[in-house]
């Protein structure tokens, strides 16, 4: 064992870590404090004698009440949830099968196919939304959740496929060979042996896909127009900023409520998530 000097531990570990943690968490703290600060304090001059920018003495839930009553926020929440769940499910299903095939089956052009799937992930949505908008209009899907449910997989499927392909490759192929000799078909071996072992990978792909579609902005902004059809990220920004007036309290309340589901999902599955990204399986 090395006996480290105390100051080294501080310089190389505690101080950088503290800076990082504070830097990361401060925006969240700011969001929280703004959401519960009364309007009077929010719009007070920065130089006012009573200004207390980092805390508040009169916390209020007024902004949350306004958010629920004056906007269609619950509806946005539901829209976002519905779209995220369905598009994640579709992407996970396709990603599982495609990832398995690319990792395990030998077929012509497998490598090329894998790469081209990855390349589609690299096309930025800021370019892709233009042709996609055309397609959505042709199929008359504009302003419906299906516009997003069908476009999100354009980036979710490549993502899931690659993450899962990598994970499947870490599972020794003898496991399913053994299962196939033991009496399972290839599909049976995949279902009974490979998928249960790949649960951490599948979960992290699912969580990631869910988060990506939950936070997605540009497609949602382009394809949805009615206020009650919007998702949280778009709704909050487009309905709570009117001209140059920012409804800071409600904006932050909406952002706070909007990030809770994602935070919950992560906290439940954090262990799977970590093994899914780093771990492998030992036979």
């Amino acid at each position, binding site marked *: 064992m090395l006996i480290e000097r105390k100051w080294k531990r501080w310089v190389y570990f505690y101080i950088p870590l503290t800076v990082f943690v504070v830097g990361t968490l401060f925006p969240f703290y700011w969001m929280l404090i703004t959401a519960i600060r009364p309007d009077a304090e929010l719009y007070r001059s920065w130089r006012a004698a009573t200004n207390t920018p980092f805390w508040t003495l009169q916390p209020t839930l007024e902004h949350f009440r306004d958010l629920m009553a004056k906007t269609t926020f619950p509806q946005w929440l539901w829209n976002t949830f519905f779209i995220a769940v369905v598009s994640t499910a579709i992407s996970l299903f396709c990603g599982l099968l495609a990832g398995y095939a690319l990792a395990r089956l030998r077929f012509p052009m497998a490598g090329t196919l894998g790469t081209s799937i990855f390349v589609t992930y690299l096309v930025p949505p800021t370019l892709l939304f233009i042709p996609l908008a055309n397609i959505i209009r042709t199929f008359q899907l504009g302003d419906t959740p299906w516009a997003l449910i069908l476009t999100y997989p354009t980036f979710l499927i490549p993502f899931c496929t690659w993450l899962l392909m990598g994970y499947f490759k870490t599972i020794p192929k003898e496991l399913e*060979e*053994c299962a*196939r*000799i*033991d009496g399972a078909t290839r599909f049976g071996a995949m279902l009974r042996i490979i998928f249960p*072992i790949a649960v951490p990978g599948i979960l992290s792909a699912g969580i990631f896909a869910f988060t990506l579609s939950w936070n997605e902005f540009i497609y949602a902004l382009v394809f949805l127009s009615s206020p009650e059809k919007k998702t949280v990220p778009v709704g909050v920004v487009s309905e709570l900023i009117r001209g140059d007036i920012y409804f800071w309290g409600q904006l932050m309340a909406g952002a706070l409520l909007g990030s809770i589901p994602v935070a919950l999902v992560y906290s439940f599955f954090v262990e799977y998530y970590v093994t899914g990204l780093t771990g492998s399986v030992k036979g």
Partner: protein
Amino acid sequence: MAQVMMKDLNKKYDEVHAVKDVNLHIRDKEFIVLVGPSGCGKSTTLRMVAGLEEITAGEITIGDRVVNDLPPKDRDIAMVFQNYALYPHMTVYDNMAFGLKMRKFPKVEIQKRVQEAAEILGIQELLKRKPRQLSGGQRQRVAVGRAIVRHPQVFLFDEPLSNLDAKLRVQMRVELKRLHERLETTAIYVTHDQVEAMTLGDRVVVMKDGWIQQVGEPLELYGKPANKFVAGFIGSPAMNFVDVKVADANGALWAETQGLRVKVPPIHTSRLVPYKGQQVTLGIRPEDLQLASGSDPSEYVFDAVVDVVEPLGSEILLDLRAGNSTIVARVEPTVRLKVHEKTRLALTPDRAHFFDLKTELAI
């Protein structure tokens, strides 16, 4: 229980011809070992029997069924893998029961068979554990147990002992042999370890570069290797090879090279006559060399200088130089020789081997 036939078996990957014209008749209840250096096609052959690799050309018969187009699950075989391939998310019991469950055996029967197999292998206390809680040897036992509960027609072993440490490997080797005597199931066993091959196999198949080099009982391979490769592969330390010239002198044939001249033993004389004046390879196993005593016929004795002494306890390995050739001799542990010391070696005449220099086939 069944015989396995391979007829003109071939396997080609894109550019590699991994298995070439393999013909093999594995008899019912036989324990056959495929052995060879890595890349010799032994594992590929086994995997074709298992149905995990497609057959490029040829035919495999298990029992009296041609299995070329049967999926692995319908071939009635069981396989043990080098990395054990235990299902990590299942308990030992479920691992062993998996194959039976897939085949829709009644629960009582499954339980009976798993118990029975667990008893044979001494793993009853482990049934509720997960694979990750087991040691290497225990995992190996579970993998074997998973194979035997099914009572398959053929066992396939793909280097099952390679991941174990040396001591455990010897122990499991003995157990596998005992198990085979008890179950009497046809077994095909792949290994790169010639000691495993010799000790386990009823017959041993030596492979190289996709070709079968020789098939035979262990002592037959050892005593009458078909070519130089088999001669050098089987046996440890390996057979000594010296390139010699066949010369005619005093009405007898002599094998000679610089610093080494021995008479061609009578049993080889007639076969070596056509090689008169040509180069051949002389092969002598280390144990067929002794320190010469006065009673050894002088025509089989030659001079050598000790290079390295390796005392192993039960025997001593001497690395010697005879002229330009390096030779290993296995001698009694009582021999006291030092490095650089001169000595005289005698070879056992009827145990010498001769190989054609070009074809490397035994003469």
